[in-house]
């Protein structure tokens, strides 16, 4: 009985936190339809700065082992966030200069919403990263997008903290 009360209190606290997160204005106005269009602008931005990196002459000496490989996304959005751009550009540079290297891009969603729809959202995120790499000179055969939807959460739990850690694309080298 006591245990169930604790469980109730925890679940209530979580759901309150979740409701609070959900009712923020940004989540109410954020639509996947418009975020789809954002992909293009994010990619365009990446293309512009990508040229600078290529011009710096350090291509080929990028140490991908030290780069960020998990890239996070905003709620119901699939545009590459600005805090992801520097490291994604470095991955792109490495891949562009190592044609035999390849990556898989695992797209993930948080648990809200239906599973197959989230499978599609996870794919949108992976494809947004794939496009970013592509416009930064990576051959399309070097990157594969695979969506896991909400099926492989990085962390369990329903608070916004865990939800935001689950909305991600994981970049994994299949060959270097």
């Amino acid at each position, binding site marked *: 009985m006591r245990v*169930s009360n604790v*469980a*109730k209190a*925890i*679940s209530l606290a*979580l*759901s309150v936190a*979740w*409701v609070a997160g*959900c*009712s923020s204005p940004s989540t109410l106005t954020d*639509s*996947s*339809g*418009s975020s*789809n269009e954002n992909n293009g602008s994010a990619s365009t931005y990446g293309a512009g700065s990508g040229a600078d990196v290529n011009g710096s002459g350090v291509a080929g000496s990028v140490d991908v082992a030290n780069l960020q490989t998990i890239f996070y996304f905003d709620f119901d959005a699939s545009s590459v966030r600005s805090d992801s751009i520097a490291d994604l550009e470095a991955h792109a540079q490495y891949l562009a200069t190592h044609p035999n290297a390849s990556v898989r891009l695992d797209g993930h969603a948080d*648990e*809200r*919403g*239906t*599973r*197959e*729809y989230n*499978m*599609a*959202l996870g*794919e*949108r995120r992976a494809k947004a990263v794939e496009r970013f790499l592509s416009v930064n000179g990576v051959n399309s055969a070097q990157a*594969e*997008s*695979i*969506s*896991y*939807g909400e*099926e*492989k*959460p990085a962390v*369990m*739990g*329903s608070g916004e903290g865990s939800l935001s850690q689950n909305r991600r694309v994981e970049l994994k080298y299949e060959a270097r």
Partner: protein
Amino acid sequence: MVKQILVGVVLLLSALAVRAELVIEVTQGVDAPTPVAVVPFGWDGEQLSDDIAQIVSDDLGRSGFFSMMKRENMLSSPQTQEQIFFRDWRVSGSDYLVVGRIIPAANNQVTATVELYDVLKEQRVWSETVNGNAGNLRDVAHYIADQIFQQLTGIRGAFSTRVVYVTAEMLGENKYRYRLQMADSDGARPRTILESKEPILSPTWSKDGSKLAYVSFESTRPSIYVQHLATGQRQRIQSFKGLNGAPAWSPQGDRLALVLSKDGNPEIYVLTLATGQLDRVTRHYGIDTEPTWAPDGESLLFTSDRGGMPQIYSLHLPTRDLKRLTFEGKYNSRGRLTQDGRFLTMVHQDSSGFHIAVQDLKSGRLDVLTSTGLDESPTIAPNGSIILYATKKGGRGVLAGVSLDGRVRFTMPNTRGDVREPAWSPYLQ
């Protein structure tokens, strides 16, 4: 006397065994459920594996149509008509009374004779003698519950059906265990159909109940499989680049609707199983997913965000006429229709989260049936009485049920892992 005590102990033990397996908790009932008493059935032999009368009582109680009398409140335990004192049952408020007796038969069989009485009229309403294997007493019990349910409501019972669902456990960082399980409609007798370290989702029944289609990531990419339940034999039927998801069997069983993103983004396809012919039926840059068939097999309902947010659309295949079905709220997805095609159940988001809702397609009226905030994957019993769905309780995924009118609710807590993605079988006879 000694024998009676022994019977009492046996019944108590088997009742405990049932309880350990599954706890069904009816959290809300109909306004005036019909009171029914199911008396423990007579039995003289060794302890039976299951308490048939208790299972019958639990089945009927879970339907929400009935309030079941507790055994400890029963003044007597009649097993035949001559032993019934109708006045006692009338006084204790029972409208109907079920009595029965089980006798052993050859080859490990048992024979159960069950009678249903109208207490007010003091008349027998129905009686049947059922033969069954002593090892499968639950089948006998669910059959009896189906007959009684039909006698008292006029609706075909669906207790003898099965449910498949997925359980997931996080064993450590990046270590998971997924299981596809099948159980009785009350959650008992769960058994594993498939186990994998990679995700399993979207299980769906063929219309004859002999096969399942599902999505498995066991090759580290999503593929659609069809598995024969009797043999366990299976085949991978679709494995394109990108998404391979959301399989849905046509009512005739000859086609499978599914989602592929091989052409760039998720689109609905229809696969003709005999020939392998694949027809793309949607063309839109938005997300099109979660197809489900109308009962006539002529239309597909699916989720699309072509209007900006996910809503449910209907596509008439012969004419390709497209119609949007849902308008209330900004998120309606993963529709499922009742067998008469009149009611559409779905996941509906409002300010308090994601709930199960049902829309009357005749009147357009939408009713939100649940109040918890992470409800999904509604699946409807073949007789249209109950929707089973996945929800969270204490931070864990559990299955729950709600009647189509929203007045009856119950939860089916599971002892292990996160439970999700229930799919109710069709009638299996």
